[in-house]
């Protein structure tokens, strides 16, 4: 046959709860119960408070650079809720606090992390989350490898990995997708397409109509969802996770959302994006639409909101207290965790805190005051 179609692929879009808080009842069937939604909304409120608190801490110079999660709560929480705590592994980038928290990583540790303290990335026993990941696009390979181990050992676990729209430009993303598909491992790739990678808009980052279509390269099931719609995110995530768990291989989810804040506290987004754009997306805020929906359904009212706000404020203050209470780690920590067993050279460095090795004590060298 001289000409024929060798391949056809497509990307579907899913929205269940629209910007006005109107639910598509049919699509919402078998997704979240009323109790779930109320609980998750409370959770989102709490996360928003904590996020704002981190921002303020940074401005008060009590925290280093911090990337706000604001506006992306539905994406993190909808997907995080679909994963089994203590069973499935979350492999995050850095804008998924809400999901990590839900899976047991204490939020004060996340604060400690941004305060420049490795102890913030110490994962408690039983918690199945990896540390935040700074080098963009690299962690998806770890998720793929973990998922591969689950498959090898026939464990009913799934890895779900988070990354941004910009991350899909990195080669490692591509290699992870290819491995995951070639070996059909239980890994869910969750792209938080928040429209920006620092100052570069998605349309400039790639010449592609959607991010999700990148999965077609690997014949990997994919979907684009309204990332500010808790229902759509949950449904797509649950379907992908449960399919992966039952041997159906990897999947790709593009959550279309928006970074309502600056890239990080070191950034000033007004330099490169219009306030109209931000304002328009403010209207699609996942919290607002969920509150509208809940109120409409009689599940929520101002008193409940006030209580939720108060709980959020209280939690945030507890988190700050715990994080700041941790103080500075012992300086020897930097040596103690490099290998399981320290090398002789490192022992010397640890003992003397010096890298020169004349073997003399500072006092011997005639220093005016002795070094500690």
């Amino acid at each position, binding site marked *: 046959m001289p000409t024929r179609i060798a391949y056809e692929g497509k990307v579907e879009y899913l929205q269940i709860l629209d910007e006005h808080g109107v639910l598509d009842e049919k699509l919402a069937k078998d997704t979240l119960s009323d109790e779930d939604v109320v609980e998750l909304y409370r959770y989102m409120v709490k996360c928003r408070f904590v996020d704002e608190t981190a921002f303020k801490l940074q401005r008060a110079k009590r925290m280093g650079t911090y990337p706000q999660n604001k506006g992306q709560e539905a994406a993190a929480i909808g997907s995080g809720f679909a994963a089994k705590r203590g069973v499935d592994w979350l492999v995050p980038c850095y804008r998924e606090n809400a999901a990590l928290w839900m899976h047991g990583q204490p939020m004060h540790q996340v604060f400690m992390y941004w305060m420049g303290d490795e102890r913030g990335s110490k994962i408690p026993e039983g918690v199945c989350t990896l540390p935040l990941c700074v080098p963009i696009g690299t962690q998806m390979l770890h998720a793929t490898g973990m998922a591969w181990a689950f498959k090898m050992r026939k464990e009913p676990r799934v890895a779900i990995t988070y990354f941004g729209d910009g991350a899909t430009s990195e080669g490692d993303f591509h290699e992870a997708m290819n491995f995951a598909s070639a070996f059909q491992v239980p890994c869910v790739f969750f792209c938080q397409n928040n429209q920006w990678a620092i100052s570069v808009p998605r349309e400039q*980052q790639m010449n592609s109509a959607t991010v999700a279509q990148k999965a077609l390269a690997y014949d990997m099931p994919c979907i684009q969802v309204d990332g500010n719609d808790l229902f759509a995110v949950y449904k797509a995530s649950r379907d992908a996770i449960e399919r992966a768990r039952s041997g159906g291989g990897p999947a790709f989810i593009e959550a279309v959302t928006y970074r309502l804040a600056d890239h990080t506290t070191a950034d000033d987004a007004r330099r490169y994006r219009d306030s109209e754009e931000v304002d328009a997306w403010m209207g699609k805020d996942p919290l607002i639409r969920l509150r509208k929906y809940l109120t409409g359904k009689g599940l929520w009212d101002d008193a409940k909101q006030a209580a939720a706000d108060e709980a959020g404020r209280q939690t945030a203050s507890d988190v700050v207290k715990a994080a700041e209470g941790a103080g500075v780690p012992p300086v020897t920590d930097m040596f103690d965790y490099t290998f399981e067993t320290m090398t002789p050279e490192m022992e010397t460095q640890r003992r003397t805190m010096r890298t020169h090795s004349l073997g003399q004590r500072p006092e011997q060298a005639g220093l005016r005051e002795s070094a500690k």
Partner: protein
Amino acid sequence: MPRTEAMIKQGLTLVDAINEALYQEMERDTRVVCLGEDVGLNGGVFRVTEGLQKVFGPERVIDTPLSESGIMGTSIGLAMAGMRPVPEIQFEGFLGPAFDQLVNHAARYRNRSRGSITVPMTVRVPWGGGIHAPELHSDSPEAIYAHTPGLKVVIPSTPYDAKGLLLSAIRDPDPVVFFEPKRVYRSHREQIPEEAYTIPIGEAKVVAEGTDVTIVSWGACVHTCNEALDHLPEDVSAELIDLRTISPLDAEAIVRSVEKTGRCVVVHEAPKTAGFGAEIATIVQERSFLHLKAPVQRVAGFDVMMPYYKLEGQYLPDAKRVEEAVMQCLAY
């Protein structure tokens, strides 16, 4: 960009100096293009390329996708095709994904093709610790690139040197890695010539003359060493050399000084083991063996991952540690 009132009065920061060099060279040579993540509209995360896109347009000051190997690899292609690309890698930690293109291609094309294909490109990279940044924003991988034949590695420590060396780098017919010590990006201001000037790549600078001990350093640590000089006892006369370029290395300058002083201390931020300090110590003992009165001392980062910022001050060599090493060297 043209100088502001503040610059005219108070002098230029290192960032200003680099910006001025880019601006002047882009004006002079239309083959020069700047590319990288956020270098355009946003002017770079450190504002080093601030304003350039407005002047030269988005075709010459280019916001690229988030893709370091892509930036490095396409810059190689641009250079081979006759442009003079100046890619920026946003932080030294993100040279990782671009390592292969830099080391296995940029460094080798001329030799591999017996001179018929060349890669005149200057890779700008904010470098080093001390600014309370997150992980992989504070490393010092210079030894790796100095160990790569075919690359030049330039590390200015002052605004004056930054401008002159960057202009040399861009005009250099071979690939140059230009590490910018971010700790001193804005910490010092200096009055420097407004017109374009070059400083030869491969020439060290004697920052302070002395007769008792030679201190060799580069990048932000030069300032740490300078601070240490102030704390040394009055009767200690230390010579401080700022290498400015570690590849090619100005070994003569070091040897000349050590043959005078008989003592040498090397100071750098990178982990000690197999750091570039080892090369210097080795050269000194190879070439000035009979002049040496004490072992060459290294003051460096520890052999651990650069710690997160709560502990970076304990990791980075400070004036106290330099002072200690100098005194030990003298007391030997």
